[in-house]
């Protein structure tokens, strides 16, 4: 099963997973981390400690924040981990509902696409 790390500012990741689980029930093989109170090196270390040998997706909240920079840096050693920024509910719902049946590369592309499609603007 494709592993997920959700790494965000504050408690965003924890709350997002809570929201996912209210819709889908408890999820396995997912770690939620916060950058709170950690240096860049510590963030990298705590993400790396959560990874197993198989490919996974690193979800971060903001492209340019320390979670993103840390994961991008970590990918030098772990290119098997995909990194997706802008984590939101549609993205995670897509991931958790589709990870069991899609091969890794296809899963990554689908999750990204579904996240984009989850943003709809209704305006006059």
């Amino acid at each position, binding site marked *: 099963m494709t592993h997920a790390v959700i790494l965000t500012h504050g408690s965003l990741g924890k709350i997002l997973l809570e929201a996912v689980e209210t819709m889908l029930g408890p999820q396995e093989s997912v770690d939620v981390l916060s*950058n709170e*109170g*950690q*240096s*860049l090196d510590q963030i990298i270390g705590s993400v790396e400690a959560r990874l197993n040998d198989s490919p996974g997706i690193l979800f971060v909240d*903001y492209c*340019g*924040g320390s979670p*993103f*920079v840390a994961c991008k840096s970590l990918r030098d050693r772990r290119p098997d981990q995909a990194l997706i920024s802008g984590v939101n509910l549609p993205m995670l719902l897509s991931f958790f509902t589709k990870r069991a049946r899609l091969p890794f590369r296809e899963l990554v592309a689908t999750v990204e696409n579904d996240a984009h499609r989850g943003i709809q603007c209704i305006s006059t």
Partner: protein
Amino acid sequence: MKLPFFRGKDKIVFPIVRVDDRLLHGQVIVGWGQTLGLHPVLLVSDRIGKDSELAATFRQLVPEELRGDIVTVAEAAELWTRGDFKDARPLLVVETPVDALKMVRLGAPMKVLTIGGLHFREGRDEILPYVFLSDWDRTTLRELAGLGVRIQCQDLPASKPILYED
């Protein structure tokens, strides 16, 4: 150790020199840079270097209007002393107090140093939730203070700067 609130006029002294071991990140780019309209935003580091992967990441991530760049300590001191920061609103980010001290030794007329984030590490004591200092950090800050630099702690523009005194 006293950490009184700084009660002077909280006028920002430019360039802002910030010590932050997360380097360029959300608090710096959005919290300071975009909120206060700062530019250039320079990562001052000999370690990161212009050609590293990390340097490329930072270059790519800093929004264009902040005119982000990565410069060495010597380059930063040079830009400062030759007057490139005059009439500008620059933000310089260093990884450690030592790099700030090096800049001053190279002639940078630094008046204020802001500790924005030095996070927990073995052998560092907590001063504030976002400031942990080692003995080496303290020695360096003492030397900077001796050279006339005011040391303050402040994570975001909206929070009150807290004067650091050894």
